[in-house]
């Protein structure tokens, strides 16, 4: 057969890099040897025969390559490839290929693939590079940062040094004054050695030398150094190779600072922990405000390191929790001990542990008893100090005034119970709409028993309470998720096309609503939506797959929202939940559409269950 008669195939192949650099003869030879296979989502996985390696060229559809364990390696659609790693390495392929979207695949057998590699060096290089890139991608994403950051971003400007004719006692005094574990020894501006804690122990105390021994007798002479502009990664390698923990950093031949293995450890993934640690050490509002300035860049780092939305939400919430607790502690330094037991409550996203950047504060105080004048004044002052403090730290006051500093929400357990009973037993949809936020509630500080009493009281009343659940459901289905995308527009379910989508109110919030309704209907204590949905699996009347789908949809939309905000932050725009479709890849559109479908199905589900509506 003359392959030129199959123009649709040759035309497609010869536009694909690296095939586009092959001459016509090679293209024809390659197209001749193709087989075509169709994969449907019904089959879930592409059957990859490890004994018959081939290059899979995606003609249409979407596929996902994961490790055996399920870690994502690559996602491919039209004009992309998979299956080449096994062909290049000669090892058996153990990766799994999931079918995301039905489609057609052209399969190029190993023999032809190798002929093309032999015939064209650029072709060969293309796949080797793609292979290497993928291998890197397979490594832990956290490492990504460390490999590209430079030493200069880690070291302090301060150089702590002595000359080698000083005594070791002087050295020890300086080290304890500056709280460092090592000194740089400089003579005539030149680095001549280093002295570490370990040297003081091993070479001095253990040997019975006394304090007026000169440093030059015990220091490590001509230590290994690193350049200021070297990669942190290189410093790590050097330290582990030479089994050292201290690395003097030089610039233009002169020592400028000391890099320790602790510095490197700290620079890795422990940033949020470090921030929380810092928060816990501050004793006044001003220093807390300074520390919390790191929050936006922490968020940005988390997004860049490809952390899950669920994890990012948790980390941000942990930081907010720590700030709140520290503010209460600082306020109590000023106000003294509380006149009765109390519990600081958070609502909404902080309670659900899915805070996003720029979230406002929603909190309240739960008090053991009714207050008298003096205790009322105490808790008013406490609430004002904490709420205003949070505001200064970047968590703006709640526009709806759901804050502990509002006397309405600074009340006793009994009054809280009365409020909830009112919302639950006489549910007016409008009144309930404003009260929904209270049903996602978590204790932050103080007496947890108070909170548990309140929560069990609420759940007792909401469980299987048809009228209340119907009202809640009525409110939850007022907003609906869009249908999908068309060109650069979002298509609403009524067919209208709009320019963008609010990923909070038409995405995550809808799933939070659904999770809340089911949780209250079943008397679940969990507050985080994922935990609620997970806890619901196995409950009678709940479809496991529906819950798993909702969890995935929540994660996907929340992640898209965070990435969107990450982009806004990088471009210096005001953070919003608004997503413009032109920034989305075809695959992301496809996934979002699926997620919207899951929301729509679940809304129909709660309508049927709680409103008896079809």
């Amino acid at each position, binding site marked *: 057969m003359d392959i030129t008669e199959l123009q*649709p195939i040759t035309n497609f192949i010869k536009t694909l890099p690296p095939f586009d650099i092959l001459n016509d003869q090679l293209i024809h030879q390659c*197209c001749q040897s*193709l*087989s075509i296979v*169709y*994969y*449907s989502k*019904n089959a879930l996985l592409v059957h990859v025969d490890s004994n018959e390696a081939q290059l899979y060229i995606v003609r249409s559809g979407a596929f996902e390559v994961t490790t055996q364990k399920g870690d994502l390696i690559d996602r491919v659609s039209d004009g992309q490839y998979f299956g080449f790693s096994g062909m290049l390495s000669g090892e058996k392929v153990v990766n799994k290929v999931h079918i995301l979207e*039905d489609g*057609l695949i052209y399969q190029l057998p190993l023999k032809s693939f190798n002929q093309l590699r032999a015939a064209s060096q650029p072709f060969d290089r293309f796949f080797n590079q793609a292979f290497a890139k993928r291998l890197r991608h397979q490594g832990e994403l956290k490492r990504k940062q460390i490999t590209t950051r430079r030493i200069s971003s880690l070291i302090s400007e301060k150089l702590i040094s002595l000359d080698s004719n000083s005594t070791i006692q002087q050295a020890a005094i300086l080290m304890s004054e500056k709280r460092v574990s090592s000194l740089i020894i400089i003579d005539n501006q030149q680095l001549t050695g280093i002295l570490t804690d370990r040297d003081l122990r091993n070479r001095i105390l253990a040997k019975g030398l006394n304090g007026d021994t000169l440093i030059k007798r015990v220091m490590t002479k001509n230590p290994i150094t690193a350049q200021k502009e070297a990669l942190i990664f290189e410093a790590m390698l050097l330290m582990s190779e030479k089994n050292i923990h201290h690395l003097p950093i030089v610039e233009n031949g002169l020592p400028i600072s000391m890099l320790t293995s602790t510095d490197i450890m700290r620079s890795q993934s422990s940033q949020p922990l470090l921030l929380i640690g810092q928060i816990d050490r501050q004793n006044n509002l001003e220093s807390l405000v300074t520390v919390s300035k790191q929050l936006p860049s922490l968020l940005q780092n988390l997004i860049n390191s490809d952390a899950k939305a669920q994890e990012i939400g948790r980390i941000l919430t942990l930081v907010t929790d720590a700030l709140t607790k520290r503010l209460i502690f600082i306020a109590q330094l000023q106000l003294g001990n509380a006149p009765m037991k109390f519990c600081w409550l958070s609502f909404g996203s902080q309670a659900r542990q899915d805070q996003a950047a720029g979230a406002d504060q929603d909190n309240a105080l739960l008090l053991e008893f009714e207050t008298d004048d003096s205790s009322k004044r105490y808790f008013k002052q406490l609430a004002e100090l904490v709420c205003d403090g949070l505001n200064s730290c970047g968590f703006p006051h709640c526009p709806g005034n759901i804050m502990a500093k509002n006397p309405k929400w600074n009340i006793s357990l009994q009054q809280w119970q009365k409020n909830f009973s009112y919302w639950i037993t006489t549910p007016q949809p409008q009144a309930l709409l404003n009260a929904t936020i209270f049903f996602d509630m978590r204790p932050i500080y103080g007496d947890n028993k108070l909170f548990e009493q309140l929560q069990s009281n609420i759940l007792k009343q909401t469980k299987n309470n048809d009228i209340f659940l119907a009202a809640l459901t009525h409110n939850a289905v007022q907003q609906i998720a869009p249908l999908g995308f068309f060109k650069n527009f979002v298509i609403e379910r009524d067919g209208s096309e709009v320019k963008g989508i609010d990923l909070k109110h038409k995405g995550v919030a809808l799933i939070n609503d659904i999770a809340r309704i089911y949780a209250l209907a079943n008397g679940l204590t969990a507050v985080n939506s994922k935990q609620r949905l997970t806890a619901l699996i196995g409950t009678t009347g709940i479809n496991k797959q529906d819950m798993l789908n909702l969890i995935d949809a929540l994660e996907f939309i929340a992640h898209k929202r965070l990435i969107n905000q990450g982009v806004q932050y990088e471009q210096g725009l005001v953070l919003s939940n608004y997503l413009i479709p032109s920034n989305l890849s075809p695959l992301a559109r496809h996934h979002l559409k699926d997620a919207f479908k899951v929301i729509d199905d679940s809304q129909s589900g709660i309508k049927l269950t709680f409103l008896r509506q079809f």
Partner: protein
Amino acid sequence: MLAKLFIKSVIHYQSYRCQDKQLRSYQQALLPLLDLTIRKAPLLALDLEMTGLNAKSDQIISIGLIPIINGQIKISQGKHQLIKIEGSVGQSATIHGLVDADLQQAVSLEEALQWLLTEATGSVLVAHHAPLDLSFIEQALHKQHQQKHRLFAIDTLQIEHQRLLRKQPMIKEGELRLTNCRNRYNLPHYDAHNALVDALSCAELLLAQVSQMGGLDAIKVSELIR
């Protein structure tokens, strides 16, 4: 079940009374294939280009064939045969992109039929709107052997017709056209049209349809052949 029995008995009967050796072996080779799954049975997608739509008065211009073996369309085994016609291709030349000059490499209808039967022996034919293509071949066989033969094939249009009717009450004009059927399965759009590209398009459509109907291992030839 009944349809399967009917097809089997027709094939039995035809091969019994058939005079032509080649045609008989084609019929006999088809019988054992009926019980195989779509993956196991060798399939051969077929498309004809004609001067018109009437088997009695119009002529075959070219035949495109491409096999599906073990669920894989084998490009290297695709074949395209041009056929000599009486007179000129006339008006339809613009449609098929063939001009009289191309037909220089063409063979006679008799030779083409012989070639087709050889190629098709041991395979199940697949075509989009199969009755039309088969009627042209049946007509040519009739002329050659003075004996009527009924041929069988898997018809992707018929499959699509049934699948669509399960989703919607009626079928609008054009919905069963090959291009439109392919769109529903996320199959790419092919610009060029000749018998070989259309045979390929039809082969891909069949794989897509069967994959969505439950898979190549779940469906047997006898469930689809007409």
